[in-house]
């Protein structure tokens, strides 16, 4: 069985189990009053906590959750902050990260032409049926949360994705993509802040959701939107 990364880091930190680490993680002084298990736990929690602080995913989800909560969307905030807290707890308590997935099975969802066609048909039926529900209603909310939670759980368990071989990506290319998405997010945030309030739309400074309102006002528009959302989910699951 593979060892969690926190253990490996601690063990590689020096000749003794209480030494410092190369990545700047704090070292813990030897305390003869601590049991071996307690000492080992202190060694592993420190680097794990630093790993959480360095994880941009946790930070992004927390910030997005806070802003969404301030915008009057408690369900969204609960999702984002809940996932951020779960990831942080996983890293600290379970010393998780990639090492925790070593014992998990292979991808649960595998793409195939027939399976893809069946799933697309189901998605189309789902979109047409759910698209008839009023936007921002509780039934619509449940209809989005249920498939979302299932995929989120599969993602947590490592049961989605192709897991391609590690390839070195060009930093410049990655930076270019980051610039587009971060820029778009900042522009969206700018327009949100230029609204009269977080909960009042602005024609002069529309956010993407305000721009989508006319399209998603009709059942046909909602059905198309839901189908595109599900298709995007399938593309991500198949990564």
């Amino acid at each position, binding site marked *: 069985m593979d060892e969690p990364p926190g253990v490996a880091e601690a063990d590689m930190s020096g000749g003794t189990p209480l030494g410092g680490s190369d990545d700047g993680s704090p070292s813990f002084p030897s305390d003869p009053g601590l049991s071996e298990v307690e000492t080992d736990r202190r060694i592993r929690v420190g680097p794990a906590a630093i790993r959480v602080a360095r*994880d941009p995913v946790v930070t992004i989800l927390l910030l997005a959750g806070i802003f969404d909560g301030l915008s009057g969307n408690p369900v969204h905030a609960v999702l984002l902050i809940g*996932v951020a807290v779960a990831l942080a707890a996983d890293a600290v308590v379970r010393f998780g990260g990639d090492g925790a997935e070593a014992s998990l099975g292979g991808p649960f969802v595998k793409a195939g032409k027939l399976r893809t066609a069946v799933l697309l048909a189901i998605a189309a039926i789902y979109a047409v049926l759910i698209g008839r529900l009023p936007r921002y209603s509780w039934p619509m909310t449940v209809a*989005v949360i249920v498939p979302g939670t299932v995929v989120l759980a599969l993602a947590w368990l490592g049961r989605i994705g192709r*897991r391609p071989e590690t390839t070195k990506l060009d930093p410049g290319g990655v930076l270019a993509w980051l610039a587009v998405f971060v820029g778009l997010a900042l522009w969206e945030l700018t327009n949100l802040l230029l609204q009269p309030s977080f909960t009042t739309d602005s024609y002069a400074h529309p956010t993407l959701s305000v721009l989508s309102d006319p399209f998603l006002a009709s059942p046909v528009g909602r059905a198309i939107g839901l189908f595109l959302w599900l298709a995007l989910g399938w593309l991500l699951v198949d990564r």
Partner: protein
Amino acid sequence: MSSHALTLVVYLMFGLAGLTLEIRARSPRSRIPSLGTAVGRVMRTRSGRVGVIAGWVWLGLHFFAR
């Protein structure tokens, strides 16, 4: 140009920038990764995978749900 029009133009510019990057990424000699490749790389870790999927769930909530 009105504020509304300016806002739309900037959104369109980001969309075009993304489209341009994706087209360039599909060139055989390009060093730019496609969006799919970049996302696939991000999703190799639990944190990245769960973060990306949480973003997708949030999109559904944002546009359709309460």
